[in-house]
């Protein structure tokens, strides 16, 4: 392992430690470089008010939270890796809104972002995660899949089941900020770890730049291949730089456990299969995650995590569990019922088209998944999804028989741990 990185981990641990203790701000200094004098002059020529973005047409979480006063206090701060507020919010400035979803409008460049710029990110997190307050609350992590009950769905309705999350490697900058060597190190660390997986998890890595045409076609046919981001939400956040350098896809030979390297997060981990056995999908998910974590520990690496924010990922919307558990489910009658949206809302579920986040549903088949990410554990969220989908199927069956259905009571918000 490159010694450069070992030294860096040692240097960064205090920062992560401070963060996990809930300290107010990590000591991010002012810009330290030869051009400090020039920067000083610039700062007096252009006070923060001169640089404050025009957000009048914007409707994302960042635009709702950022005030001129907050901007003035944070504009000249930097994380230990010299990442700035302007870089965090660039994507939100460049993308005023989205037709289907309220976007977040800010990204993290490194673990310390969430501390140094807490004054902006805390209200964004509260807004996005149902009032979760990082200053006072703790996030529970629970990857014990044995706790899931009723996790096998009626396959007459559920066509496929999937769970995904992300993991970041502590000590390396996140996709908006990482340099080429950091990104390559992420790839090396992850690919080395994955090579240690055995049994039903044994698999193979395909670097995006190196794969043969045949391999590429196979990955497309399997619906595994991810492409260079075209969404301006990602490109304006600098995540497509140097494409396809150090990007790739790993999957096990069984093709039901898949890892994306260096796309929108350091890693995206996906467990999926056809049919309705969500319990087995989640079991494989948890086992795989734990084994990967063990394998990187053996080499002195760890995932970014703290007890306030759970797993640290690029987009604040994925903090906590980073978990989206979902199914493709046929609900031909229920989906036409006027109460459908309300039922989903109360079950804390969201619907998407079967093409994913930026698509509308076609026909009777929907992607139904959990809304929440932070403040509830993985087990809680998957159980919530399981209970919710079972409820939806039950409604569909009732409507098939001409019986009436009920809108369920809203599911409780997170408990305070």
């Amino acid at each position, binding site marked *: 392992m490159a010694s450069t990185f070992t030294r860096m981990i040692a240097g960064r641990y205090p920062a992560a430690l401070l963060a996990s203790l809930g300290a107010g701000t990590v000591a991010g200094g002012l810009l330290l470089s030869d051009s400090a004098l020039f*920067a000083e002059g610039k700062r007096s020529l*252009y006070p923060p008010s001169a640089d404050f973005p025009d957000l009048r047409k914007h409707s994302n979480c960042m635009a709702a939270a950022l005030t001129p006063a907050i901007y003035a206090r944070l504009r000249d701060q930097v994380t230990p890796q010299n990442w700035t507020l302007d870089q965090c919010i660039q994507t939100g400035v460049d993308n005023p809104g989205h037709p289907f979803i309220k976007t977040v409008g800010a990204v993290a460049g490194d673990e310390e972002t969430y501390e140094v710029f807490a004054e902006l990110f805390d209200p964004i997190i509260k807004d996005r995660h149902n009032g979760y307050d990082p200053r006072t609350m703790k996030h529970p992590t629970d990857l014990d899949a044995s706790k899931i009950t009723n996790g096998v769905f009626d396959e007459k309705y559920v066509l496929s089941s999937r769970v995904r999350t992300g993991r970041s490697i502590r000590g390396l900058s996140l996709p908006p900020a990482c340099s080429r060597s950091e990104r390559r190190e992420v790839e090396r660390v992850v690919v080395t770890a994955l090579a240690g997986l055995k049994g039903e998890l044994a698999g193979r890595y395909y670097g995006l730049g190196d794969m043969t045409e045949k391999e590429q076609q196979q990955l497309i046919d399997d619906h595994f291949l991810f492409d260079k981001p075209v969404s301006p939400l990602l490109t304006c956040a600098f995540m497509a730089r140097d*494409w396809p350098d150090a990007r790739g896809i790993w999957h096990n030979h069984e093709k039901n456990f898949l890892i994306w390297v260096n796309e929108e997060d350091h890693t995206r981990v996906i467990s999926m299969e056809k049919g309705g056995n969500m319990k087995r999908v989640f079991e494989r998910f948890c086992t795989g995650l734990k084994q990967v974590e063990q394998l990187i520990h053996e080499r002195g690496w760890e995932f970014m995590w703290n007890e306030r924010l759970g797993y640290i990922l690029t987009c604040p919307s994925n903090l906590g569990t980073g978990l989206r558990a979902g199914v493709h489910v046929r609900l031909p009658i229920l989906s036409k019922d006027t109460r459908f949206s309300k039922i989903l809302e109360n079950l804390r579920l969201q619907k998407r088209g079967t093409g994913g986040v930026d698509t509308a549903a076609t026909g009777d088949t929907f992607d139904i998944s959990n809304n929440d990410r932070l403040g509830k554990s993985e087990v809680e969220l998957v159980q919530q999804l399981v209970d919710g989908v079972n409820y939806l199927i039950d409604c569909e069956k009732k409507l098939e028989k001409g019986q009436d259905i009920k809108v369920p009571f809203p599911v409780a918000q997170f408990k305070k741990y």
Partner: protein
Amino acid sequence: MAKNCHNDYKMKFSGDEEFPDLSLHNNHMAKVLTKDIYNKLRGKSTPSGFTVDDIIQTGVDNPGHPFIMTVGCVAGDEESYEVFKDLLDPIISDRHSGYKPTDKHRTDLNFENLKGGDDLDPAYVLSSRVRTGRSIKGFTLPPHNSRGERRTIEKLSIEALATLSGEFKGKYFPLNGMTDQEQDQLINDHFLFDKPVSTLLTCAGMARDWPDARGIWHNDAKTFLVWVNEEDHLRVISMQQGGNMKEVFRRFCTGLLKIEETFKKHNHGFMWNEHLGYVLTCPSNLGTGLRGGVHVKLPKLSTHAKFGEILGRLRLQKRGTGGVDTASVGGVFDISNADRLGSSEVDQVQMVVDGVKLMVAMEKKLEKSESIDDMIPAQK
């Protein structure tokens, strides 16, 4: 606050670990950049914080272009061309026909030095246009500038343009604030520029904060047009229907010099030096930054075997009528000067005028099924 370069942190990694993978690339930057050059330059930054990685990012992200050999790098400020000369000088030499670091560039905006140009046959020459760019001294360039800087550039530009009178009296339309009616009119006039979609520009950071502080100014007669904060601080365009390039160039020079006077009064002249001429964002536009051209009907000549060679000898280039990234439609081509650096504005427009005149004469010969072999010019 200038965009942060993240550079001090990156210096902890080795040059080898950071060097980009350019194995599939075909642009000027990829041909010139070696590990040695990269290692020499990666520790440097301009006073405003622009680094070699910033310079090359667009070239790393865009391996090649189907129609043209792209440059693959941009400047973030005036000092970029000094601090990173070890990379940019060879690129400039490559792109500008062997221009040397010791060469001097001549500026000549005296329109009276242009000979002819008022007699291009309007049956063939449909429209004439001259454009250039200008950067305002004391500000960083579009890949790097902050919102505060960009807004100040806009403010200064509006003030300068408001002083123009007579044939140059006009109006400014900020992109973020025009009415639907104004927008439709600008589209119909073919004046409106839109948020860049070309990844050559977006990967260089030029579309940040769109449409903040961007706008279009044009005179009432709609023959003189200025774009503010698109790919350069200012793009200045003179154009009209028909073949009177002389008039177009007169208006171009006159208007430019008037605008420059006003900026100088505010102690913000244009970026210029005697080696590189006018300093612009893309190295391809150094020197005059001038592209003077016509839309001309050459259906027969364009299919002649020697068309490419003729253009090369005349130091002209062809584009489609949609601009740089398009193919020609109906035998109508956009013909313009290929050179920017090492010859003056008058020289370059003269080449367009003389070259187009010759090509129209050739077209007429070919219409009569006569040979043009004795008309093929020598290499200029």
